[in-house]
């Protein structure tokens, strides 16, 4: 610390700061701080000209570190880190001090106090930079290969798109066949293509690619390493064979499970009450007339939202709160297919909200034209399925008729079941996949980082992320591909060096840090200098700091937030101003 030369640059931000803070007073006070070699003010620190002047100053004054007191680091941390790098000093020797959002703007009527606060904040920044150490990003060479888990349509499309970009792909499917759920649906919305045909086309294309290796009847059983360089093991389902692979990125496309109603839920289990997937399997075989168990079907009643948008109840403590998105359209489309088989069949749709969004609205209108009848039921009074005298009868309150109760005799009741998260405990454990509130895999942010997970280099896609139509599943798998490919084609990844580090002198291996760390493999026990100590693996550490508060010896700290830095900042914030 002794001998470090720090430069303090204070920004007026036009008048945004200097109107409320006496910048000259701050400059004069900061200049007297020990370690500060130079203190200057700037009208706009972020302007090209100011940055040039700062670079000149850094070089002339042979500075080791700098502090810029300006706006929130959210705005210009990267700008000024880049400037520091251009000037020749380490970019982590730069500290940004927020004297705009957290000082001048918040204390506009207290100039003296705001000025005093600014002095203290800048002093804390100086203390932080003085105790900082030059750090370099951790560069990891990436292996130009990817693992795709799940060969449904999302996974198959991902494999092809990665292969298009010259990335070798290992596509691992648990089942004996590829294609996932889609081959069971026959004609699919929006353009009536056969699911099996879509899958077949993709499979042919995959077979022609030399850089795609497809494993069916196989599972991922082990993952080591970190982003850019994972070692994984794939095992044949019958346990006969195990293959070790090295990949730089992993795309998870393991899909969903159709919701399975409980016995008695909307009459499920009684003859004539089927789920939408079950009905879809009946349809292709039907010609001329629809038949169910050798009986002609005249009346079909669809009950929407089964297994989706559930309310919490005593018998259902973990309800599926989400809308399954695909089912309104699939049900309406199914009605069109049924009308195609027998134009005379009567179809009643008992729905809550019609979510045939986008172009699928056309299907909704067409179903109406082809004779489907739509009745809206209230959220709190779902239809009831009964069998008085052995015949199915559905009682429903129609919202649009002022809540009047109607009874509809049915030959077939189709429960429009939603999507449920697929049980995948082994994979979740091997890949350490984050699972969200609804039970699907969780992205970092649904809008800003929709296919990335907290595990760097592991991406999620398709219906494994949450209910999606096929087009949406493919869109998300291609998003995962572009994220993964961007990582692999660059040839390296730079990881933030702001991770935990152990002071091996002070550490006496108690293991507390390892217990507190939620990230697999980040903390290891190693032997050093004749004793056991903790070692934090910089590529696996996320820099969360979870290990810091549990260390009895204060031996582990985050780079940039070390115990010493925090305490020095506290001192600088309270020390008297003379």
């Amino acid at each position, binding site marked *: 610390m002794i001998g470090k030369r720090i430069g303090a640059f204070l920004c007026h931000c036009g008048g945004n700061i200097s109107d409320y803070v006496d910048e000259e007073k701050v400059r004069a006070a900061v200049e007297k701080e020990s370690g500060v070699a130079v203190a200057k003010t700037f009208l706009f620190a972020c302007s090209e000209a100011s940055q040039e002047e700062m670079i000149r100053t850094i070089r002339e004054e042979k500075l080791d570190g700098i502090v810029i007191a300006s706006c929130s680091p959210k705005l210009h941390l990267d700008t000024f880190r880049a400037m520091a790098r251009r000037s020749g000093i380490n970019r982590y020797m730069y500290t940004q001090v927020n004297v705009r959002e*957290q000082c001048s703007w918040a204390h506009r009527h207290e100039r003296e106090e705001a000025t005093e606060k600014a002095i203290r904040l800048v002093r804390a920044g100086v203390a932080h930079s003085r105790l900082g150490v030059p750090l370099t990003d951790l560069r990891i060479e990436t292996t130009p290969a990817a693992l795709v888990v799940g060969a449904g349509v999302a996974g198959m499309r991902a494999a092809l798109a990665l292969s298009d970009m010259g990335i070798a792909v290992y596509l691992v499917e648990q089942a004996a066949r590829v294609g996932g759920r889609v081959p069971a649906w026959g004609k699919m919305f929006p353009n009536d293509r056969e699911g099996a045909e879509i899958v077949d086309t993709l499979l042919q294309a995959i077979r022609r690619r030399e850089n795609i290796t497809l494993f069916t009847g196989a599972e991922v059983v082990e993952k080591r390493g970190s982003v850019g360089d994972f070692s994984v093991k794939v095992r044949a389902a019958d346990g006969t064979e195990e293959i070790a692979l090295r990949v730089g990125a992993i795309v998870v496309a393991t899909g969903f499970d159709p919701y399975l109603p409980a016995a008695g839920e909307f009459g499920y289990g009684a003859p004539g009450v089927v789920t939408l997937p079950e009905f879809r399997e009946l349809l292709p075989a039907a010609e001329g007339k629809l038949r169910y168990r050798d009986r002609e079907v005249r009346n079909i009643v669809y009950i929407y939202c089964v297994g989706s948008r559930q309310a919490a109840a005593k018998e259902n403590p973990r309800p599926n709160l989400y809308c399954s998105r695909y089912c309104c359209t699939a049900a309406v489309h199914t009605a069109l297919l049924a009308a195609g088989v027998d134009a005379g069949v009567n179809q009643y749709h008992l729905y809550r909200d019609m979510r045939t969004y986008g172009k699928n609205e056309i299907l909704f209108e067409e179903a109406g034209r082809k004779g489907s009848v739509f009745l809206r039921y209230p959220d709190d009074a779902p239809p009831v399925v009964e069998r008085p005298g052995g015949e199915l009868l559905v009682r429903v309150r129609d919202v649009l008729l002022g809540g009047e109760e109607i009874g509809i005799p049915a030959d077939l009741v189709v429960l429009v079941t939603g999507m449920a998260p697929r049980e995948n405990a082994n994979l979740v454990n091997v890949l350490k996949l984050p699972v969200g509130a609804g039970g699907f895999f969780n992205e970092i942010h649904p809008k800003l980082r929709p296919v990335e997970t907290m595990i760097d280099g592991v991406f999620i896609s398709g219906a494994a992320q949450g209910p999606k139509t096929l087009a949406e599943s493919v869109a998300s798998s291609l998003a995962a591909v572009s994220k993964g490919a961007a990582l692999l084609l660059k040839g390296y990844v730079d990881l933030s060096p702001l991770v935990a580090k152990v002071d091996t002198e002070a550490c006496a291996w108690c293991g507390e840090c390892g217990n507190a760390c939620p990230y697999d493999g980040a903390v290891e026990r190693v032997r050093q200098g004749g004793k056991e100590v903790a070692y934090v693996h910089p590529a696996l550490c996320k820099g969360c700091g979870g290990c810091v508060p549990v260390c009895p010896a204060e031996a582990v700290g985050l780079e940039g937030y070390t*115990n010493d830095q*925090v305490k020095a900042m506290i001192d600088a914030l309270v020390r008297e101003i003379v």
Partner: protein
Amino acid sequence: MAKAAPSAGNRPKILVFSTNTISDPGIDLAGSQHMSYSPSVKVISVPCSGGIHPNWVLYALEAGFDGVFIAADGGDCACLPDCTARTARIVERAQGLLKERGSDPRRVKMAAICSVCSEPFVSHMRQFTEALSKL
């Protein structure tokens, strides 16, 4: 200003531990919206509130701060999924340390501040300032 506020020197000194991605933007927003709070409030930012050492809290109070406010992530944290529970444990430990030293555990406070929580932040600062003045 309409009324003369007690000068910053007399108002309780509060150290806020805030998080880079969740509460910092909320505190920044308070400033952007020109809401005011006591200039005796100073912020130190960390990646996650689950990484604050209880000793830092103690250190701050011994160094001259009157109170320490921990802006927890309130379940939004991308670093540590259980950070609220972790932060609560840290606060408990810090309060334990304070009691051992005969200091008032109410000098440490924790509340969830999210990235748009400008108003809650300002009102927490007001309340904490008042509460500390009475201790």
